[in-house]
C-alpha cells in the first residue's frame, strides 16, 4: 500500500498532463462518474458535509486499525473531487491521516480553478476526514 504522500504525488503527476482547466474538469467529471455506488441508507444527515452547495455525504468504517472512506454527492464535480480525497485517505491508519500534510489540492491548481465556495467545501471535506480520524484514534 502506498503512503498518503505517494498517492498525492501520483495525483499531482496526473494533473500535470492537463493543458487547461477544461481537461481538469473533464477528468474530475469522469472520476465522479466512476466512483463506486454509495448505499442509499448511508445518505443520512449525520453523514452530510456542511459548506457545500451540492450535497456531499461521507461515510467511514474502521477495521483492523484502518479507516475506509466512502463518499457520494448529487453534483458530479463534487463527486470527482471527493473521490480524489477518498483515494488519498482511504485504507490508512488514523495516525497517518492526522499526520498527513495535504498539499495536492494547491499543487494541482484545484484551489484556483475551483470556485472558492467549492474550495471551502473541499476544506470542509478534509476537516471531516480528520475528525473521523481523531474519533477512531480515540477508540483504539
Amino acid at each position: 500500500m502506498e503512503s498518503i504522500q505517494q498517492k498525492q504525488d501520483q495525483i499531482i503527476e496526473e494533473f500535470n498532463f492537463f493543458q487547461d482547466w477544461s481537461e481538469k474538469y473533464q477528468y474530475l467529471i469522469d472520476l465522479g462518474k466512476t466512483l463506486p455506488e454509495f448505499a442509499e441508507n448511508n445518505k443520512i444527515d449525520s453523514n452530510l458535509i456542511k459548506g457545500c452547495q451540492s450535497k456531499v455525504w461521507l461515510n467511514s468504517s474502521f477495521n483492523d486499525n484502518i479507516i475506509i472512506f466512502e463518499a457520494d454527492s448529487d453534483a458530479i464535480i463534487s463527486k470527482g473531487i471527493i473521490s480524489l480525497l477518498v483515494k488519498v485517505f482511504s485504507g490508512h491508519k488514523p495516525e497517518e491521516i492526522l499526520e498527513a500534510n495535504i498539499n495536492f489540492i494547491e499543487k494541482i491548481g484545484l484551489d484556483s480553478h475551483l470556485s472558492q465556495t467549492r474550495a471551502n467545501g473541499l476544506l470542509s471535506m478534509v476537516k471531516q476526514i480528520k475528525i473521523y480520524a481523531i474519533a477512531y484514534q480515540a477508540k483504539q
Partner: protein
Amino acid sequence: MIDVYKIREDFPILSKKINNTDLIYLDNAATSQTPIQVIDAISDYYKNYNSNIHRGLHSLSVDATNKFEETRLKVKEHFGIAHTHEIIFTSGTTHGINIISSGLEKMISSKDELIVSEMEHHSNIVPWQMLCEKTGSKLKVIPIKDDGTLNIDEYKSLLTPNVKFVFINHVSNTLGIVNPIKEIIDLAHANKSQVLVDGAQGAAHFKINLSELDVDYYVASAHKLCGPTGVGFLYGKSDLLNSLPPYQGGGEMISNVTFNKTEYADLPHKFEAGTPNIAGVIAFGSALDYMNSIGFDNIESYEKTLLDYATESLKKITNLKIYGDIEEKISVISFNVGNHHPSDIGSILDQFGIAVRTGQHCTQPIMDRFNIPGTVRASFSFYNTKSEIDLFVDAVKKASKMLG
C-alpha cells in the same frame, strides 16, 4: 432606444477579466452592477461633506442632511409616493419587512390569518413565520401552478374574513414572473386585508406608481437598482406607519428622553434610529437619477428583447428545462439541463468567465414545489448584450456536453 455599448462604459466592472476571459455578468437579480456616477457620488460624499446628519448646525452637516433628504424626494417622485415622510430608509428589503413584522406583533392575534405565496424569497417568509410563532396566528400559502404562476383562484378562496395581511413579491427573484399585484391588492382590500409588496425585484425593471397601486407597504433594496449595498426603503401609508410602534430605539427617533417618559419623533424619523447609511442613501439617489437618465421604458423594452432572445436560444438545447417560462416576466431565466446538478453547470460557466447564480436562490419552497435541488439562474440587465447571451448559451451547451 438604448446604446448598450455606450452604457457599458459607465460600468468599470464590465471590462474586467475573469479566468483570463471577459467577465459576463448574468447575476443581476442577486445584485446589480454600479455605474461610475454612483461610485463617484460615494467618493464625493466622503471627500467633500461627510458628516453626521440632522442634528448638526455646521455647514458639512447641513450639506449632508440636505443631500440625504434629497434622496427621499427622489424616491417620492420616482415611486409616485404622496409624502416624503412615508418613506423610511432601511438597510435593505429584509430590514424593511422586519420593521413591519415586528410592528405587527401587538396588532395580530391567534384568530388572525396571514397569507404569503409559495414563490416568496425567504426574507418574505421567515419574518412572518416568526410573527406567527409569537402571536399564534396562522400562515396560509398561495400555491403556484406548474407554469410557475400564482394560483389566483386559490388565493381568492384563501382570502377569508380572518385574513389580516397578504405578503407577496412583485416579481419572483427565481422565476422572474411578474405577479398581478394590482389584482391581488384590490382583492385583499375588498376583504379588508392589508398588503405588503416585496419589491426587491420589481423596482429595478419597470417604473411603478405606488399611489396608483394603492399598496399599503412596499419594500425594496438599492443594491438591485444600480445603487450601493446596505440601503433600501420602506414605503408605508402614513396612517399605517403612524399606528405602528417604533422598531429600534436610539438617536434620531425620539423627540424627548427622560427616564420617566420618552416621546417618539414623527415619521419618518420614528423608524430611523441611529446614524443611517448616509453615503449609501445619497448614492441611492444618484442611482435613481442614473436609471432615469436611461429611462425605465427603454430599460424595460431592451431587457425584454434580451429575455426573448436568451429564452429562444436556450430552448434549443436538448433537455434544457426553464421554470416559469411565461409571457409576464422580467429578464430572469431559471433552468436546469437534464439531470445535471445546477452547481456543476455553474462551476463550468464560471470557468468561461460567466457569472450566474446556482442553487435555491433563497426560495426553497419553489425548489420543493418542482422537486429539484436548485436551478441555474441567469438574469440580464440593460447593460448586457446579445453577444454575451450567445457566449452564455454556447457555454451552457459546452458544459452540458462535458457533464455528459
